[in-house]
């Protein structure tokens, strides 16, 4: 019930913002709207926790054509990703308060529309509904980047749009194929899909279609080339939405569809999918070392971390799946943190080039501390959120194949290499002309950073709430894949 309210509420706020005249109140309304949405999802969380074993459904009998249901249901994976979405969106909105954007009402309306679609993706319990939200999410982000983006925004966005759309179409074909095999009256409901038993060969094709669709979205090497350009041209809020939340749609899809629908194909092809993911980890980590533009740097580092999550999902062990869910949350939080740090630097210096920065730690010590804390989260230092996730991911991959875990482990070393070198060049050393007037954090910036820091250490030190919520989902998925849980 609350899920439906949440989606409708976001839709209404978004429409409202479109309808209102441009004024300085627009931001505030958007922020309040997104905060209210966060409040609703917290209420959902409590309802969910009281109601274990934990499935909330919302199924108004409005659409029943061709077995399409407007059915939303919430399990542990959904609730965690919805919470991530509704937690990050207010922060993303708040982080843009200092920017002077043209047409603010459209900007914020699109962000909320985006939030709505993302919640829809994570809540849908019907494959076609999932697909609709999945595609719907592309529209606001397309406009956000194309209209408020930097250099070459239109061209780059078009490439991003077409690239992901091709993937989506492949997925649509696969969805329709599986739909045609659903037993009894054809239905798009998740449960009908899960009841389909595909032949080994069919599984391979379905796997391939889903894999390409999600590999582009996540992105997995070598389907990633849209990403650095898009991140670097997008307004920072756009990059935050993309990296923080949107790419989780791909990972979510892998867990929801690929694992349960294609267990046999997973046995045949999973190894190669992991291999690609791990090549991507090492490849993008190496590239990140010498990136000079901070946003591209973040793009490649993010790709490395996400590659590990994807590898863990393909490994399909209990530990790696649990780790992947924790790490999806952690990655969203950390990558938002990094982009916000970038945003702060650009606000002060108009410059996102690592080589022209330096000495910030002596000018702005508090900023340097927050920066360091977020960095620690990113290099998975124990007691930060990423450690819990990456430890479980690597443990799970190790259980799948020890050699793959060894190569995946390079992320530990290379992550430290590129992160620390970047930090050193930005924060340490002598002050440079660009950083001459770098003032320390404002109250508003601290308010945005504190929730991030809290989450980094909460998940790092006491992750049991998150582990507990994720556990039944993982057990469920494992039982469907018939991969023997360890």
């Amino acid at each position, binding site marked *: 019930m609350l899920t439906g309210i949440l989606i409708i509420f976001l839709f209404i706020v978004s429409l409202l913002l479109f309808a209102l005249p441009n004024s300085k109140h627009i931001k505030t309304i958007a922020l309040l709207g997104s905060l209210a949405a966060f409040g609703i999802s917290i209420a959902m969380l409590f309802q969910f926790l009281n109601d274990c074993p934990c499935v909330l459904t919302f199924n108004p009998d409005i659409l029943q054509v061709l077995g399409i249901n407007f059915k939303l249901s919430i399990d542990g994976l959904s609730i965690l990703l919805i919470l991530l979405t509704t937690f990050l969106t207010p922060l993303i909105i708040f982080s843009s308060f200092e920017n002077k954007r043209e047409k603010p009402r459209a900007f914020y309306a699109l962000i909320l529309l985006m939030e709505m679609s993302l919640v829809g993706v994570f809540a849908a319990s019907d494959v076609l509904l999932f697909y609709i939200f999945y595609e719907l999410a592309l529209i606001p982000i397309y406009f956000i980047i194309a209209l408020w983006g930097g250099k070459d925004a239109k061209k780059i966005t078009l490439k991003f749009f077409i690239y992901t759309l091709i993937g989506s179409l492949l997925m649509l074909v696969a969805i329709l194929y599986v739909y045609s095999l659903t037993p009894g009256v054809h239905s798009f409901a998740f449960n009908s899909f899960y009841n389909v038993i595909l032949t080994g060969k069919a599984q391979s094709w379905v796997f391939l279609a889903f894999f390409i669709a999600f590999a582009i979205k996540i992105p997995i090497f070598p389907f990633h080339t849209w990403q650095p350009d898009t991140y670097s041209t997008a307004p920072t809020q756009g990059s935050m939405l993309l990296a923080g939340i949107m790419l989780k749609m791909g990972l979510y899809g892998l867990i929801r569809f690929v694992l349960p629908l294609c267990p046999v194909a997973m046995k045949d092809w999973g190894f190669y999918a992991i291999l690609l993911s791990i090549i991507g980890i090492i490849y993008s980590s190496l590239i990140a070392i010498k990136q000079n533009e901070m946003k591209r740097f973040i793009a490649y580092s993010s790709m490395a971390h996400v590659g590990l999550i994807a590898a863990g999902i393909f490994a399909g062990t209990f530990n790696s799946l649990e780790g992947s869910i924790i790490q999806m949350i952690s990655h969203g939080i950390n990558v938002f943190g990094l982009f916000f740090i970038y945003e702060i630097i650009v606000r002060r210096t108009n410059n996102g080039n690592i080589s022209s920065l330096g000495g910030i730690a002596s000018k702005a010590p508090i900023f340097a501390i927050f920066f360091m804390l977020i960095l620690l989260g990113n290099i998975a230092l124990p007691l930060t959120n990423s450690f819990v996730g990456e430890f479980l991911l690597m443990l799970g991959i190790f259980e799948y194949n*020890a050699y793959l875990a060894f190569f995946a482990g390079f992320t530990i070393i290379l992550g430290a290499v590129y992160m620390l070198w970047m930090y050193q060049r930005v924060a340490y050393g002598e002050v440079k002309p660009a950083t001459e007037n770098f003032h320390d954090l404002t109250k508003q910036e601290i308010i945005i950073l504190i929730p991030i820091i809290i989450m980094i250490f909460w998940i790092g030190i006491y992750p049991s709430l998150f582990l507990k919520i994720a556990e039944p989902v993982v057990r469920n998925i494992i039982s469907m894949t018939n991969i023997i849980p360890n």
Partner: protein
Amino acid sequence: MIEYIWLVPLLPLIGFLLIAFNFKRFQGSVSGIIASSAIFVSFIISLIVFIEIYSSKQTATVQLFHWIKFNKIDISFSFLIDQLSTLMLMIITGVGFLIHVYSIGYMKGDSGFNRFFSYMNLFVFFMLLLVLGSNYLIMFIGWEGVGLCSYLLIGFWFKKHENNNAAKKAFIMNRIGDLGFLLGIFMLYYYFGTLNFNGIFFQAHMFTIGNPTITIITLLLFVGAIGKSAQIPLFTWLPDAMAGPTPVSALIHAATMVTAGIYMIARSNVLFVLSPITLLIIAIVGITTALLAGGIAIFQTDIKKVLAYSTVSQLGFMFLALGVGAFTGAMFHLTTHAFFKALLFLAAGSVIHALNGEQDIRKMGGLKNKIPITFFTFLIGTIAISGIPPFSGFFSKDMILIGAFEANSIFWIIAVIVSLMTTFYMFRLLYIVFWKRSNKEDLHAHESPKNMTIPLMILAVLSVLAGAFGIPLVFGGNDIIGNFLSPIFTESTNIIKINAHEISHNTELLLMFIPVIFVFVVVYLAYYVYVKQKKLPEADNQKRPFFSNIFFKKLYFDEIYNALFVKPALWLSDFLHNIIELKVIDRMVNQAGNLVVWTGKTIRYIQTGNVGFYLFAMVISIILILIFKLFI
């Protein structure tokens, strides 16, 4: 008191948070006093716990909360309090406290005073977690945490990129080791289904000696130890780490953090004795490192670098001890080394302080009478590390030498050579720094304040007396430390002893005193060269003899690593981005896009608007389909 053990790491953590949140507010030495008090209270609690464990011979596990728990995995935040961990507690909080007090004087006036003490307290917190953890993952938290603090403190003066590079190098080299450690942890979990020490060691008996699984696990753990304890091939970060303030070198890079590898292997002794191959490798790596680092130390000209290589060498010595199964010897030497090496570093810091930051020994000399307390304590440290009886180093080294002899007399011979090298470079350092040289004008030097000299004196006393804990049976001693640690090591030593040949008391005495005679010869040799002949190390621009040059240049390890790893990685980064990423993958994607556009453009010409053409195309198509249907 044992149930309050969590206070021991908690207090430094609180100290850290208190200082971190007030780092702009605290003035003067407030933060130093807070940090020192936190460690002091921890020390008192540790002492009480130590005495309880010592008298009751009991061990305890204190569980705080479940950290990672779902499905079958259950990793708890819990502490194991036994002989080994309490011994480490005493060293960490005791030596840690003295170094904190010393730092109040040493860091006075530094603009990062508060930052310094917050990092130091955080370090102690993580170090305590490392030794208290009751499973490998809690140990790993501390393991990586101390690495972080080491990084922050090496690069403490971050305006100089030289320091930052040293810090980064330390962290990355440690992380290479950590990957090994982590893979070891995965294997442990895979084969034992738990990460708890007790659970694993209990099940270890099911494996036979020489089992390949155990060999791989122990080798992976050893890789972790190599990184943290600066052994070949991952030792080059430690000398660079001297870029940090001297108290940091004393605490982190001599007394505590770098010994974590020794502690970890000693803790896992039950596993390691099951793999004779691993033990042999550990012994070889240890003795080789000890030998090479000792050689390099002889030719260094920076007071802290000499001590750094000396530390690497002594750590190698401890690994030799572990490798030959002399676990008690390793822990004993770890303890005495913590005292005298911390003492030497702090005394060196006092010299540097007296000379306003000068670290080049070629610019020193004649400080004997100017800074007498520093001199005297440095002298004690030098005697202790050289293994001259009855100072502590003699007893701990002896324990290792006997163990080495029992295993393999070649180890013994090399170990004796290493220990003579130690004597040589330490006395070389002592003579050059403190003895007067006529051709030089007098240096201006001032003795350090009391809060620096008192810790020196206490450490000096400990360096002299700590040997009393390990007086061997031949001397009528009762081997206090051996008995104390026996619950941890007995089983393992028994396994080792099966293959070792017992030696008689007379041989033991002989083995003990042959090195001592040589030590005195070497002390005189150093005296002859550096005091009588007043020889000074060559200036940097002066040409050195071939052999000396190689050791002066640290055997070119840095250059080799640069050529083998750093440069290729940077090259690869450029290559992957500029060629593979932009010219291959992205171009292919764009070409695919262009192909679509091109197809569209081409096909567009068919749409001529001519109805006749459309009809024609339709008829042709129908015919084609019919043919297709007919024949297939």
